[in-house]
């Protein structure tokens, strides 16, 4: 009996390791490719024979990834706090106050969630141009400053917390804004973090909107810079593309490892995002 369970355990680990090869393998192959030295053939084995950082430094020195990093960082740093602020503000009355038009506002916000970006990207492109947002950091942030998804997510969170604390704060003379800021928000902190993670990963990796709204290379984000670099997808460029891909992924990786329990806890708040 005991050897039976042991055998099962070994089999389980074996299968789990095999799946890891599929999920993590591509990253390792890319990392090793990025570490290969200039003289090395790209398909001469997976491991680098003479590991070097030259492709990583080249990404910054020759391929302008420093600029792309700063652009992506600025856009993300603007998007995340604004998204949390405006979404949690808008979600609060939708969850907690009775007012005329609440039903319509809520229905409108939820219904926009199912509209594919590709339907309205052309009009948005034109509006961004008219407002002088083309080739600006602000222009890249507009999609994430307030999102229907974020409002929906925060509303669900506010609905879940008990009302009693907020009611007693009202009795103590606090106004609605104070109650939102000092009582309600701290109660939904886990959802705020979930939303921050979503906004971060989306903004950091977004490709289509920056592709439309940026024409000057000085405004490129990492995704655009990487896609541009990959236009020349041959052996001579593969190591640089690989190194740049790894560099682009590292910040998300850090956030992920730091906040992993919010990712893999089994919380399915974000289920609607799709």
């Amino acid at each position, binding site marked *: 009996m005991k050897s039976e369970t042991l055998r099962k*355990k070994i089999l389980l*680990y074996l*299968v*789990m390791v095999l*799946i890891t090869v*599929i*999920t*993590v393998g*591509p*990253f390792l*192959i890319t990392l090793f490719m990025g570490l290969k030295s200039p003289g090395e053939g790209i398909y001469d084995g*997976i491991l680098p024979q003479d590991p070097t950082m030259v492709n990583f430094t080249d990404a910054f020195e020759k391929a302008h990834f420093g600029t792309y990093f700063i652009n992506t960082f600025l856009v993300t740093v603007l998007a995340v706090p604004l998204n949390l602020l*405006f979404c949690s*503000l*808008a979600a609060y*009355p939708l969850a907690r*106050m009775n*007012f005329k038009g609440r039903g319509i*506002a809520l229905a409108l916000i939820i219904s926009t969630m*199912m*509209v*594919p970006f*590709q*339907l*309205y990207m*052309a*009009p948005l492109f034109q*509006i961004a141009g008219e407002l002088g947002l083309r080739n600006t950091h602000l222009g890249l942030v*507009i*999609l994430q*400053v*307030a999102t*229907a998804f974020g409002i929906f997510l925060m509303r*669900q969170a506010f609905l*879940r917390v008990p009302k009693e604390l907020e009611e007693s704060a009202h*009795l103590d*003379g606090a106004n*609605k804004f104070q109650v*939102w800021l000092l009582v309600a928000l701290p109660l939904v902190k886990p959802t705020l973090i979930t939303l921050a993670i979503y906004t971060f*990963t989306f903004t*950091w*990796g977004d*490709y289509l909107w920056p592709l439309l709204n940026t024409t000057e290379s000085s405004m490129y984000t*990492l995704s655009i810079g990487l*896609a541009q670099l*990959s236009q020349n997808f041959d052996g001579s460029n593969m190591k640089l*593309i*690989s190194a740049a*891909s790894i560099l*682009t992924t590292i910040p998300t990786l850090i956030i*992920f490892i730091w906040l*992993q329990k919010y*990712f*893999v806890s*089994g*919380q*399915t708040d974000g*289920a*609607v995002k*799709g």
Partner: protein
Amino acid sequence: MENQPNIETQVKVTAAPKKKIGLMKIFTPWLFLLPAIVILTVFLVIPILEAFQWSLLDYKIIAGTGEFVGLENFKEIFSDDKFWQAFWNTILFLVIVLPLNIFLPMILAVLVNQAVKGVGVFRVLYYLPVVTPMVVAALMWKMLYSQSGVISEFLMWIGVFDKQSNLLVQSSTALTAVAMITVWKGLGYYMIMYLAGLQSIPKDVYESASIDGASSLQKFWKITVPMLIPSITLVSVLTIIGGLKVFEEIALTTGGGPAGATTTLVMYIYDKFNNLDVSIASAAGMVLLILAIGASLLQMKLTKQREDDLRT
């Protein structure tokens, strides 16, 4: 509503004259909503309404005007073979992805739900692709798929190919090859969804099945799968909604080729946009919207129950 002072307004009575309370009560929620409403109106609602309008116009983006042409744009796309190719490619893409998205993450979830040491680490490792920027995922896989790349070598080694081949450049395999990128990217995401479902299955169901002498496989098919039906529907609908919008995996690997074999509706729209045929793009976008609404309505119907539970 103004004449029914509740606890909140009674508190304010001491501080403010009575008339002001009514106004405050009306305005406060809208003050909370104002920033989001302004932003969403300008960058979401207006563009959507304009797209509706453009689909009925002969819109020239440079001139900024267009004549009303009724349903001409729709007639044009419906008589365009390339549109239908894109439409069926989109459907085919979903048909390839859907069963894989339903079963592979479920198996992963069952594995990492076992009470053994180190499953937490595996959960994290399986989730890694989800947080990877899509452009990076697409380029990594493009490299793996290349003529002398790992996948080609592997398929030769197991005897599928007799010479080095790139799955992305053959029209018979290209769509499946890009679909695999989508599946790989979503494994961890859907695994977490199944994990939540698994954790809601009471343990004693399994225990009594064990006493009755059921094997692990029997337990999986007779208990786990039926109990996961709500998760399966959720995963299916999300796969459809997400699959309709797939872009980077295709744009950066095949660009819609070879010979349109991987041109989906989104790629079709993107090409039309690039040619400044924005009215045609809008009409095709409407078709995409209708498909997305269909899938979303299904999800709403399925999640309404949960929503109602939360409200009380």
